[in-house]
């Protein structure tokens, strides 16, 4: 954090920061008022988020977030590549939970192309999405605890996450950049041995989670730093576009897995944790409870998983198997056409949204019947959630800003796209 001079801040940002008192300039702000820059290079902003804070003493009067430091123009890039080629780029949106993004994107394209993946592939997708949710929440809780000064939980959380990443490695072939889903299925099947290992992991994970919760829930510093900090009411939370755990921390029972069921979530038995306080602590409790719910869902998914194919047999839309490409003429032609010209879904537009760990991840795709989308918009949950930061931090101390941003759990990869 450093004090700013006039050259550092664009006049329009100053205008937004000062609001009604626009006659104040940066140099002659009121005696005890000051404008402070936080980020984009700051360990507590979870990436490259830049916050400009207007302070009165230590109290935040106004806050202006500045985005775009990780803007890679994915929406522009998507317009210039085939549907298949964009799958690896979805890994880099919410980079804490890549498989969940892969699933969201594959579902959107399949909806547009009018195909459905085989049941086993859909169960595998659910399994991966829930493992990704656990991954994301473990990092989120750990980072929040670290932001307010408790380092141990971060290390314990990352230790458990490492085990999940090992599963990603076994199933997808990569720990982070999984690129696991294909249009019409998933890249490879899951062995029964892996599924058994996942059950074993869950058995010990629930104990470990109890340990972690004991460490936090009985920790007076942790509770006092979060309780009553960054309160947002139910109506404001909806109005500001909150989704996911943040919204459920404000007492709204809204989960897209229930509201608009996709995959086989309507067959799963799970509860949606809701806390009514709306403060940072409630948002932490929601995530901790969701870890247990995810573990419950994974057990059911493994229990109910049917046998069968993991890729759809639809030659014009789905890549054929490699063994067939090398031996059959038809398959070779289809493979050539799909790789070179794309899957050409019918002209039309589709909006498909799923419940990602951070909230609602939506893909809006406009097709003109060509191999690449005419337009693709990514509705990222972190972008919408960050919008509430100025509202949340107003009136709190500067040290609370760190706790509030941590409890919102933004990932700049998807907020900046």
């Amino acid at each position, binding site marked *: 954090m450093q004090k700013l001079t006039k*050259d550092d801040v*664009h006049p*329009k*940002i100053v205008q*937004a920061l000062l609001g009604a008192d626009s006659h104040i300039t940066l140099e002659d702000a009121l005696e005890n008022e000051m404008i402070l820059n936080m980020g984009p290079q700051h360990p507590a902003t979870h990436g490259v988020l830049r916050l400009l804070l207007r302070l009165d003493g230590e109290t935040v009067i106004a806050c202006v977030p500045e*985005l*775009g430091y990780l*803007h890679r*123009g994915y*929406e*522009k*890039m998507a317009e*210039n590549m085939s549907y298949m080629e964009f799958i690896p780029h979805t890994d880099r949106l919410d980079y804490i939970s890549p498989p969940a993004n892969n699933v969201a994107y594959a579902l959107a394209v399949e*909806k*547009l192309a009018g195909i459905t993946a085989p049941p086993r592939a859909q169960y595998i997708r659910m399994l991966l999405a829930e493992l990704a949710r656990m991954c994301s929440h473990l990092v989120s809780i750990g980072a929040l605890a670290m932001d307010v000064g408790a380092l141990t939980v971060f290390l314990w959380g990352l230790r458990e996450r490492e085990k999940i990443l090992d599963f990603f490695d076994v199933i997808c072939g990569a720990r982070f950049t999984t690129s696991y889903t294909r249009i019409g299925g998933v890249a490879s099947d899951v062995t029964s041995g892996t599924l058994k290992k996942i059950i074993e992991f869950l058995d010990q994970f629930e104990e470990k989670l109890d340990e972690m919760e004991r460490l936090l829930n009985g920790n007076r510093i942790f509770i006092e730093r979060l309780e009553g900090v960054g309160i947002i009411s139910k109506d*404001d939370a*909806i*109005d*500001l*576009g909150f*989704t996911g755990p943040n919204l459920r921390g404000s007492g*709204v029972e*809204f989960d897209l897995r229930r*509201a*608009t069921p996709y995959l086989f979530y309507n067959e799963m038995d799970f509860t949606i944790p809701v806390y009514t306080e709306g403060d940072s602590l409630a948002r932490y409790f929601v995530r901790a409870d969701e870890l247990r719910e995810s573990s419950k869902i994974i057990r059911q998914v493994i229990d109910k998983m049917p046998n069968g194919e993991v890729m759809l047999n639809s030659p014009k839309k789905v890549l054929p198997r490699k063994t067939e490409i090398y031996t059959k003429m038809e398959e070779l032609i289809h493979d050539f056409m799909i790789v070179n010209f794309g899957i050409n879904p019918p002209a*039309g*537009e*589709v*909006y498909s*949204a799923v419940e990602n760990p951070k909230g*609602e991840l*939506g893909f*809006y795709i*406009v097709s003109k019947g060509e191999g690449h989308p*005419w*337009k693709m*918009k990514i*509705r990222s949950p972190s*972008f*919408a959630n960050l*919008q509430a930061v100025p*509202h949340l931090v107003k009136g709190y101390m500067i040290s609370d800003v760190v706790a509030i941003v941590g409890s919102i759990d933004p990932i700049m990869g998807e907020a*900046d*796209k």
Partner: protein
Amino acid sequence: MKEVLEEKLKKEFSESSFEFTEQFGELTIKFDKSLIVPVCKLLKQDEALAFILCEDITAVDWATRTNRFTVVYHIFSMKHSFRLCLKADVDNADNKIDSVSFIWKAANWPEREVFDMYGISFNNHPDLRRMYMPEDFEHHPLRKEFPLMGIPGSVSLPKK
């Protein structure tokens, strides 16, 4: 849901035309851009509809069409678990549309993003700045004429 919406909109805006389309199980309503604020107000405030969550606002650049842009709104009614898509055409010569950010606060940033990426400005927007690109950037990257590789020299380096 479609019948209810049709009836309510017809009753409130009798002289305007609304184009209903259904695709992939999603309902889309297209209408004139001058109606965007009153229609959104009705959809949000009507107790029976209650589209209280504004999920997303974006635009589509059709490049060669007369009405070059279409502004697309995705709104959600938690009461009915129903998603609705609203569309309004905007011409390049008069690329302005009324802001809905005072109906849903969530519309603030997405509108800024549309302004940044397409150069469509929103009337009565409280803080219409660029969202991602630097403030002194002169182009609108998601317009179809903007090259994929970017324009060399268009992003200025930091002063220090």
